[in-house]
């Protein structure tokens, strides 16, 4: 059974068209020219209970708009969505109590007071029973190592500590649907890992559905069995991460290491004559080339026979590169 169902969801914004120059500015006073921007164009997907889904796309792809519609902050222009049986943008309190939205670039904790007092505020707002509150707080404190932070005012916390406290505060009411918008932005690698493993643990313990946007592929690789890719408001891919690479990566990377004291011919055994082979890195000790996926076996065989190869590996290109390519190829198309 799926907790999140999205059908033909669409959101358009009307934005004023601004032109440079005094004449245009005066003209705009009389008649404002506007233009419709399609932020999200009829996307559909389902997310099952307990699933962790990564939501990818470049800046301005429509990720945050979609997330905001699902969190009930925006009304769609058309289309339907249901989260745990609720229509999000009706914002009935029952829905709001079962959901959390965590944004890495904005914080909701009160700046000047100790963290624990912000939590107590949430206890009142979310009507959390005292017993639940203290047991959940203990659990979160334990998982995120918050012990020494709870009595400090938020302004005295580092960025990473603040984010840990944000996340914990947003989960005190034990939401069954969690939307995370760039939860690890600006954090150091250790803290990113910490937040990631915590999210995974929360998902494992409560069975909550998690939807996550991030610019860090590390977040997505570590957490998400499944990714949804959107670009220019359109859904490009919905499936597992490996599938994404298989679908969109047209090339493979071949890396060879030469024998220690072998002479390497200047034409690299005829490798330079092939138009479809791109040399990305070359030194006295080795060589890295990129080739179309289906040509990889032939090129590898050729290199083995014409070059003094000590070691050879064939790899998929890094995931960041693949995603980047997806977006740029879409722009060109």
């Amino acid at each position, binding site marked *: 059974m799926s907790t999140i169902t999205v059908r033909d969801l669409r959101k358009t914004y009307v934005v004023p068209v601004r032109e440079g120059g005094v004449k245009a500015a005066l003209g705009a006073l009389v008649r404002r020219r506007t233009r419709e921007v399609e932020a999200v164009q009829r996307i559909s997907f389902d997310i099952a209970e307990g699933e962790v889904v990564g939501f990818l796309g470049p800046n301005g792809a429509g990720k945050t708009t979609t997330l905001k519609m699902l969190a*009930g902050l*925006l009304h769609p*222009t058309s289309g339907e969505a249901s989260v745990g049986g609720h229509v999000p943008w009706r914002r009935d309190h029952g829905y709001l109590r079962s959901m959390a939205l965590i944004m890495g670039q904005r914080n909701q904790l009160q700046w000047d007071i100790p963290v624990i007092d912000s939590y107590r505020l949430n*206890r009142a707002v979310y*009507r959390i029973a005292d017993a639940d509150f203290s047991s959940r707080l203990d659990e979160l404190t334990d998982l995120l190592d918050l012990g020494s932070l709870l009595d400090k005012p938020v302004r005295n916390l580092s960025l990473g500590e603040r984010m840990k406290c944000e996340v914990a505060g947003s989960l005190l009411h034990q939401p069954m649907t969690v939307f995370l918008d760039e939860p690890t932005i600006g954090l150091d690698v250790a803290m990113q890992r910490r937040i990631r493993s915590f999210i995974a643990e929360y998902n494992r313990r409560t069975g909550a559905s998690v939807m996550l946007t991030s610019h860090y592929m590390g977040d997505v690789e570590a957490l998400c069995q499944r990714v949804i890719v959107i670009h220019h408001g359109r859904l490009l891919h919905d499936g597992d991460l490996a599938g994404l690479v298989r679908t969109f990566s047209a090339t493979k990377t071949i890396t060879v290491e030469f024998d220690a004291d072998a002479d390497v011919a200047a034409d690299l055994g005829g490798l330079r004559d092939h138009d479809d082979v791109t040399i990305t890195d070359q030194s006295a000790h080795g060589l890295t080339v990129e080739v179309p996926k289906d040509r990889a076996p032939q090129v590898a065989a050729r290199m083995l026979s014409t070059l003094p190869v000590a070691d050879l590996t064939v790899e998929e290109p890094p995931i960041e590169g693949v995603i980047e390519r997806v977006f740029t190829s879409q722009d060109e198309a």
Partner: protein
Amino acid sequence: MKGVVNAVRHHLAVVGSYLRVGLLNFVQYRTDFAVAVANALVGLVTQVIGLAVIFGQTTQLNGWDHSGLLVLVGVFFICSGLLGLVIRPSMQTLMEAIRLGTFDFTLTKPADSQVLASVQTVAPQAATDLLVGVGVIAWTLVSDGQGLHPWQVGAFLVALACGLAIIYSFLLMLSTFSFWFVKLDNILVVFEGLFQSAGRWPVSIFPPWLRLVLTFVVPVSFAVTVPAQAIVLGVDGATLAAAVGVAVLFLTGSRLFWRHALRHYTGASA
């Protein structure tokens, strides 16, 4: 019916929690409190000297005598304190939250967004103004040897509550404009200027057109003059009823405007 009672109880609990947080802020900033006391005292001394200078030249100002105006100054301080406790700081926070985008969090919470936005920031140091105001009124009445009839106290409290409700509604409407115009922080400065200058005088001294402006357009004088009148000159039932009527009108209007703005913010009507 049970649902309504429950909802009211929940919202009272929420308001209570925010007030508690405000008190905690107070502990965090003890120096702010000292500064607030100093400012309140300087403001009081300035007012008292000003009135002394004026009443060195005349015996009455449009029917208000020296001690009557002192009571009015006291009411001004009380209003200023009550506004400064929750309403003004919350409205400032609201505008900033809309600008920074953190207002989204208010909308994701399972409680009335207007209630949350209106109580989100508490500045307990404003209570000094409140105390100064009560002190000035008490001192004036005692030194004049004047007692207060319970009916006067009741009328005073009703008028004060109406005045505050009107100013609250007005400030909420001003702040709500930031859903459309993001850079609007200065608009509160305009209100503050009017309140600080015009609010210290009985509305009756102004020419009729200004009186209308200060009662309905930028309703700063109402909150101060009518309660002071209740103590100094006495008010009749009709005036009080009118005060209640205007307050209800303002509260309803600001509520409707808030909901309209929210629909705009979430794109419901687009």
